[in-house]
């Protein structure tokens, strides 16, 4: 019944030192990542279980929605598909033209990126850190540094991979920054997350820069992390303060950072050397025959 103070004190010291060692190892050493991804695998069931209510709700919505609603949705999706197809027709001609022009200019052709559809199974419980958990992991060749997009724009990059899940840092996290380009003028900048979901900030943009409200920011491909040309954000506020050396520019992320459930992992060529491409079955067959 009685708690011996001396032993409790000794254990306090022991475990405090252990925690401090963990913190030090996590901040200063890099070799903790393998341990982390192993433990992350153990944690996957937790995220799966915590996601059950959402999945049940979705299931209920799919199964109990009325016939008229389904017909309505079907009609809407059909018209949307028609619109996208029409746009894609034009896109084919445009991209062919673009490839020809690039060939004339002797620059590298833009490669079509492969994508993998993934689903969100968890979000950060801490409002100060912005990350999401996906249901795809090392088994699907997901790698650290891989870009994530949704239907509207860039979402973030993979920072931790376990066997079946991966953790993605969003572009709005305060520890995240990415090189972007203003689509209209081509000016390069760095877009930094500031810890709120709806704002990015452009850092160190000279006060004379050509930037306006409504400008689209796309990935510039510098930094070898994100592929070129994905929409990132739309400039929402520009302030030129004569007393400051730099302009104050804010932008709203294009991607639905807190709403998207179905997202796309982009496999970009030459982004990461460590990925090993699986040998296509046709190649093997032709070698054998």
């Amino acid at each position, binding site marked *: 019944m009685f708690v011996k103070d001396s032993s*409790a004190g000794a254990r306090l010291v022991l475990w405090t030192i252990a925690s401090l*060692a963990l*913190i030090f*190892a996590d901040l200063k050493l890099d070799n903790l990542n393998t341990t982390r991804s192993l433990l992350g695998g153990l944690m996957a069931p937790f995220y799966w279980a915590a996601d059950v*209510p959402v999945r049940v709700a979705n299931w209920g919505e799919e199964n109990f929605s009325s016939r008229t609603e389904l017909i309505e949705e079907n009609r809407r999706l059909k018209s949307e598909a028609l619109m996208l197809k029409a746009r894609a027709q034009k896109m084919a001609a445009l991209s062919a033209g673009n490839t020809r022009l690039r060939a004339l200019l002797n620059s590298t052709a833009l490669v079509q990126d492969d994508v993998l559809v993934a689903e969100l199974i968890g*979000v950060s419980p801490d409002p100060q850190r912005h990350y999401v958990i996906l249901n795809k992991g090392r088994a699907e060749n997901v790698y650290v540094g891989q870009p994530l997009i949704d239907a509207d724009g860039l979402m973030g990059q993979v920072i931790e991979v376990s066997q079946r899940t991966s953790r993605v840092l969003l572009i709005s996290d305060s520890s995240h920054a990415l090189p972007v380009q203003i689509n209209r003028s081509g000016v390069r900048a760095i877009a930094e997350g500031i810890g709120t979901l709806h704002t990015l900030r452009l850092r160190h943009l000279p006060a004379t820069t050509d930037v306006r409200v409504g400008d689209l920011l796309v990935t510039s491909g510098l930094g070898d992390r994100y592929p070129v040309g994905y929409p990132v954000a739309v400039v929402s506020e520009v302030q030129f303060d004569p007393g400051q050396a730099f302009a104050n520019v804010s932008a709203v992320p294009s991607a639905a950072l807190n709403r998207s459930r179905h997202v796309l992992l982009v496999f970009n060529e030459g982004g990461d050397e460590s990925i090993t491409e699986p040998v296509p079955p046709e190649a093997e067959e032709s070698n054998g025959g």
Partner: protein
Amino acid sequence: MVVDMGAQGLWVIMLSFLAAFLLSILPMPAWLQWARPEWVALVLIYWVIALPHRIGVSVAFVAGTLLDVLEGGILGAHALALVVVAYVATLLHQRLRMFVVWQQAMMVFILVGINQLICQWVHSLGTLGDRSLSFLLPAVFSALFWPWVFAGLRHLRRHYRVQ
């Protein structure tokens, strides 16, 4: 018989921690995120008060490390915070048992506040966190939820005779 009781009791304790882990990563709308109580800290504080000879800083360290892995933050942040919380709760457990429930809730506010403060310190080592006091909001909500957590866990403990 006694061994059986112990094993049974262990189940209740582990399940309550499991539920706390699930609740602390349950997806919530953005405007509710600051209102999430620190479930693991609450459950830990309850068991330390109820069974200080079984649940103490060692359990706190394990639970904290698991929480760190689960939340993907800096490894050791929650571990350190919960170890300190468990130690203070162990020292105060006799006094806490005497308190009426709102006095306990006040102490829970202070304990979870310590927990939040330590986590904030550790995270500010890693990144530039914001400097507002909003990190203390979960402590407020933990204190508000305490009476129900306390009643629920006490019911479980008595029903399953966890000693």
